[in-house]
């Protein structure tokens, strides 16, 4: 039934909470159990290589949520989220580099690439990264601060739409060039790799991998709930209003700047979090993560799943990346066709993504009974 919302939506129906709990139980309990408990040869055994892969997907899902928040709800397409993601990853990578200690190839206190470049001491921006807490907070603060500064400049001068997208792309390009330089101090095009341990625990242990994976699942859950909280709140409705009619919103006395800026910065912080979780599981971070193409690909995850729905974004990220994992092994030459085709077909025929398709099928099924108002929000 259509009802007038003045304040916040209820976050979930009882059924949706139940589904969410089931998902968390499968992802955070069943997957580790099936990996750790059965014997090597048992058919129930979940192969070890799948754990970091799942972990990667979980991180991508966080990114997808972040992009959905800014694109799906606020209508701002960012082609720069790859940078926020990579910056978070670099912050964590710097901690992991520092915790290698003297076990590197050169047996030096400095990271190997600095010894290789004949640097004698740590650059100032590496100070403090030997502490996990500092590095982790930097993984959130640095992307957040960059996004805040960039967003403040851009939104204040009312840059919107395609203009904003291509400026974020220019930023991405500039950062990629910057990080490719050896002199910048982040390992040049090799990036940061050969990590040994995190918080004193070896990264090679199966238990560590499972642990990182479970932490990622919890982070995803937290991210999802936070995003859900935001989009259901009054703030969320204002942000949606920015997307649908920014000028009207301004005329009703709101200043869109602060809402846009908040969502934009929060979105970047989430990407930083995802990057920080991603790097210890994948074991490397290098500037190719900042390629403009990566950021655009992130947008298509959300488009495939369905923007403006949080579940759709997560599903899209998993679907596209699972397809990618399969194609790049089975038929690498056709992957770009599949990806390119996805971009074209989704925008042409399924502008609201998979969720939109499912919904229209469902609506067609009961077209006579109720009117389709309120179909913007889809519960899991």
């Amino acid at each position, binding site marked *: 039934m259509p009802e007038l919302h003045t304040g916040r939506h209820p976050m979930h129906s009882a059924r949706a909470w139940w589904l969410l709990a089931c998902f968390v139980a499968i992802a955070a309990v069943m997957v580790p159990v099936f990996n750790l408990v059965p014997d090597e040869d048992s058919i129930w055994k979940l192969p070890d290589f799948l754990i970091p892969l799942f972990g990667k997907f979980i991180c991508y899902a966080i990114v997808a949520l972040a992009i959905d928040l800014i694109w799906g709800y606020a209508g701002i397409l960012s082609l720069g989220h790859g940078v926020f993601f990579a910056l978070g990853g670099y912050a964590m990578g710097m901690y992991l580099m520092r915790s290698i200690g003297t076990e590197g190839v050169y047996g030096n206190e400095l990271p190997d690439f600095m010894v290789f470049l004949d640097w004698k001491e740590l650059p100032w921006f590496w100070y403090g990264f030997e502490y996990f807490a500092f590095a982790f907070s930097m993984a959130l603060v640095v992307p957040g601060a960059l996004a805040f500064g960039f967003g403040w400049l851009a939104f204040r001068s009312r840059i919107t739409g395609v203009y904003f997208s291509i400026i974020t792309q220019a930023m991405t390009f500039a950062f990629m060039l910057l990080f490719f330089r050896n002199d910048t101090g982040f390992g040049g095009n090799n990036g940061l790799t050969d990590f040994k341990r995190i918080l004193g625990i070896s990264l090679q242990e199966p238990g560590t991998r499972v642990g990182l994976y479970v932490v990622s699942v919890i982070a995803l859950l937290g991210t999802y709930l936070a995003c859900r909280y935001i989009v259901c709140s009054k703030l969320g409705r204002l942000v949606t209003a920015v997307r649908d009619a920014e000028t009207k919103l301004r005329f009703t006395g709101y200043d869109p700047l602060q809402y846009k800026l908040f969502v934009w910065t929060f979105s970047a912080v989430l990407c930083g979090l995802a990057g920080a979780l991603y790097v210890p599981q994948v074991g490397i971070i290098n500037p190719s993560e900042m390629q403009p193409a990566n950021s655009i690909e992130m947008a298509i995850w959300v488009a495939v799943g369905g923007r403006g729905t949080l579940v759709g974004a997560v599903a899209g990220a998993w679907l596209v990346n699972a397809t990618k994992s399969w194609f790049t092994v089975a038929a690498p030459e056709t992957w770009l066709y599949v990806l*390119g085709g996805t971009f074209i077909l989704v925008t042409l025929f399924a502008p609201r993504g998979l969720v939109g398709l499912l919904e229209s099928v469902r609506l067609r099924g009961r077209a006579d009974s109720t009117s389709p108002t309120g179909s913007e929000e889809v519960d899991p």
Partner: protein
Amino acid sequence: MKLPGFMAIVITMAFAGVEVRAEEAPDFNEALQGLGSKSRTTILKSIDQLSELNDPRSLSALEALLGKRLRSDDHDGLFIVDESGEIFVDALTGEEVRVDPDSLKTPRINNRVRRSLKPLIARLRLRNPDVSIRLAAAEELENRPSADAADSIRLALEEESDQTVRNVLEVALARIELKSDDPQLRLGAVEVLGEHGDRNQEAELVALLDQNEDGQFAESDPAVREAAQSAIQRIQRTAFLNDMAGHFFYGLSLASVLLLAALGLAITFGLMGVINMAHGEMLMLGAYTTYVVIGLFEQHLLAWLDWYLLIAVPTAFLVCAAVGMLLERGVIRFLYGRPLETLLATWGISLVLIQTVRLTFGAQNVEVANPSWLSGGYEILSGVVLPWSRIAIVMFSITTVAVVWWLLQRTRLGLYVRAVTQNREMAAGLGIATSRIDMLTFGLGSGIAGLGGVALSQVGNVGPELGRSYIVDSFMVVVLGGVGNIMGTVVAALGLGVLNKFLEPVSGAVLGKIFVLGFLILFIQRRPQGIFALKGRAAEA
């Protein structure tokens, strides 16, 4: 017995005279024959002797020795074989002879021999009637100053009429005279170097001012030191101006490429408000069209290969325009009013195009050779060579901009395009078929990108990823220049291109680019609609 005695004396004296002369100036034939020797010491000695004789007849044999075309037999015979390896010429007489090639040996030379050969050949070539050979010879002497070339250079200077060759010779002579014992000569040399010298000679002048531990200057004469000081300043000033001219020109040529890449983008962006992410791939397709055209010329019209550009330019335009119109009809038309999705869809198209080209032509770069009339360059100042290909690109992009301007401002199609750009609904209301105009404009924009691709194929690598490297830059040009505005696009491309090239030497290519991007992001804050913003209602649309 007086007479015979006298005769004997005369004969003895004559013989003695011959012997004395033989010691002073070695026999030319003998010296030449020495070149064919097995021993490198003998070869070096012969070269010294020939250097002393300074006889132009020895040039062809010396050149042959350097080019490994000199042959000797066991009976002091010396032959020069031509490039084909079939015709043999006697080095002493210059007549064609028939010999058995298998009985001949090639004298072996090493770098030491080459080092003494080259200045000698250069000196002898200074008498060649061909200016370009004389210039090359003079440059050789300038690079390897040797004291025994001084007299030949002075002689050559007396007869030389070409100013360029004279300048080079003067520098060459000055470099030799710089080492002389006469302070007057050194002073003159320093002044000549100050006038014509470049960065290469600067170091030598700086060395004159060196002080050793006892406070002794390398150059003892204070007047020469003072002259050297001002000569260094002059060289540095000229070098600075040359650098600036070079940067400016290379900036101009980069700007032309950017302009060709961005012009079509600016038009379509202005008209339809969509960003075509596949625009870079139109550049790539244009470059590959050039490659295919060259292939066809090589197969069917080899004689006309030098003129392939005349066909490649219109073909690239038509191919890219056709692909562009196809895209507009097939995809973009359905996405009007959804610019962000158009951006994503065109990105998908670019992926498909790149992969198709990669599978068709291979992932490696293909080779596109310049036609012979575009290779080489024009030297505007000493040390600043403008390659013809880049000059041609500047001209080409000026022409393209002029044609596009004419098309938009002076034709009916242009009138329609401008009308639709300014107010789509009103234009439609006045009976303009806006959707047809969209298609044609998209074709035009893509076709211009194709022309850019032809231009790029002349100066850079042609590979499937070609478009990617230009797309961000061309977006920046469009953003900076303002939407749908030819003038703005031109100014923005010029500004960015020249700024890039001037920043490169200061901060390195990559950092320079980062600065430019950072500058742009800040610039947009002040003028969100570009340098030449559209005024009025159109600006808000």
